[in-house]
């Protein structure tokens, strides 16, 4: 439908728009860049914290103590039973001798247990869970096994962190959406100013019978170019912030590794670019649509 000279005209119009409103365009790129960076940065942090909160309870192992006097064959059978339960990632056997040694070592040198002549420890299993949220069910099942004496598990801490993960996830999603809408509003306003600056052209286009899609196109392109440039800027800002954080934490690899969002750089770039282009197209579409509905042909007279 569009011939090459029309495409050329539309692209040149969009570029001319940007050139004519250089300052406004710059302001739009900066605001889009900063708000995209903030919203993406917030999203990344929220994802990282969310992941951390989900990961943390996995570090809390469940300790299962075996009833005293259980024969060794039954102990090894118990190990198989435990390993087969849902939500169990791995099971490690800790003999009562090793348990006793570890206990004594944990007390340090101040308190000596050398006078205690018999070993009060029990054989035990250390259970690592694949999903800490299933911990309660698991605990109940294990408790009913006849060979089990007691279970030790930090249930409250787990509940706290899984709850925190949910809150951070929801808050992060909401904040990201709000910031995104804020950028959409700012870009939409820039486009609206651009439309206002070109109201003569627009009203003459309408007067001589240009299709609405044809009138819209340069503004859509302009919005996408501005927001796309904003996305590139946002990416730079995030990389800078990332590099700064890395320098700040230095060898505290435990922190950086722990607070990993798991989003690859290329994914972040693609997401930001998609968000930017979508943002630009959406906000300019809404602005121009409203103007084309309300705008009068009289604008050319001003």
């Amino acid at each position, binding site marked *: 439908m569009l011939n090459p*000279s029309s495409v050329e005209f539309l692209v040149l119009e969009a570029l001319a728009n940007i050139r004519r409103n250089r300052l406004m365009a710059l302001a739009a790129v900066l605001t889009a860049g900063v708000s995209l960076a903030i919203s993406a940065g917030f999203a990344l942090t929220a994802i990282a914290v969310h992941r951390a909160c989900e990961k943390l309870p996995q570090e809390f192992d469940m300790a299962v103590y075996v009833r005293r006097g259980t024969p060794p064959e039954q102990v090894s059978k118990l190990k198989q039973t435990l390993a087969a339960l849902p939500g169990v990632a791995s099971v490690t056997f800790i003999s009562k001798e090793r348990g006793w040694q570890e206990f004594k070592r944990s007390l340090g040198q101040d308190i000596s247990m050398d006078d205690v002549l018999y070993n009060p420890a029990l054989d035990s299993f250390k259970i690592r869970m694949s999903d800490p949220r299933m911990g309660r069910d698991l605990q109940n099942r294990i408790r009913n096994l006849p060979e089990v004496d007691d279970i030790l598990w930090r249930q409250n801490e787990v509940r706290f962190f899984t709850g925190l993960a949910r809150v951070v996830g929801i808050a992060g999603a909401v904040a990201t959406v709000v910031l995104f809408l804020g950028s959409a509003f700012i870009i939409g306003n820039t486009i609206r100013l651009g439309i206002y600056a070109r109201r003569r*052209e627009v009203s003459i286009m309408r*007067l001589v019978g240009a299709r609405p899609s044809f009138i819209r196109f340069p503004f859509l392109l302009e919005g996408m170019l501005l927001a796309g440039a904003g996305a590139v800027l946002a990416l730079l800002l995030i990389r800078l912030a990332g590099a700064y954080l890395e320098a700040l934490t230095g060898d505290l690899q435990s922190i950086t590794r722990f607070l990993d969002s798991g989003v690859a750089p290329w994914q972040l770039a693609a997401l930001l670019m998609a968000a930017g282009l979508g943002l630009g197209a959406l906000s300019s579409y809404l602005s121009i649509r409203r103007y084309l509905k309300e705008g009068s042909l009289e604008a050319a007279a001003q």
Partner: protein
Amino acid sequence: MIEFRGVSLIYPNGVLALRGINLRVEKGEFVFIVGPTGTGKSSLLKLIYREEVPTEGTVLVDGQDVGAIPEGEVWRLRRKVGVVFQDFRLLPDRTVWENIAFALRVTGASARQIRRRVPEFLELVGLTHRCDSFPSQLSGGEQQRTAIARALVTDPPILLADEPTGNLDPDTSWEIMQLLERINLRGSTVLMSTHDSEMVNRMRRRVVALDLNGIARDEQRAYYHAESVQR
């Protein structure tokens, strides 16, 4: 070509612009719309190119009910109707050539069509030698010629001129008048609203006179004032 059937127009602010208009304009006609300020000359033209929608009655252009055209389809009507205004409405940062080419570009013409048609219409309005000038470098008459070329370059069968000579001196007005007549002779239907009694009297064309009650007079080969006939 154009037909008004019992058309009234009341603006949202309550102003009654037109009342009970019945009018029929055939293909190839030249019609003056005259009348005192506020009797709805401009409003009548606006109803034809769908800048306004009648409050009552129907306006037909080429057999189509203009008021019933959906918003997204109005552009098809606008391609049938060229419009020029008293204040020219040229784009100040584009040359004469670009102003005329603009109408072609935004209606999707090819580069070849533009190269062919723009010089043709520059010649029609006698501005070939000024094609690289900007509107600010032109006289009022030259600006109006540019506007006329822009309105016609897309080949609309109808030309509406809303007081096209209102800002021009008598000699220049007469030149524009002659240009519009030549355009009419090429086959365009021309409707022109005006206050210029001398020009209307000189032309002796169909005159539709409006007053606050609607159409006061509709006569062929007429004068600006009814009483002029007796003179």
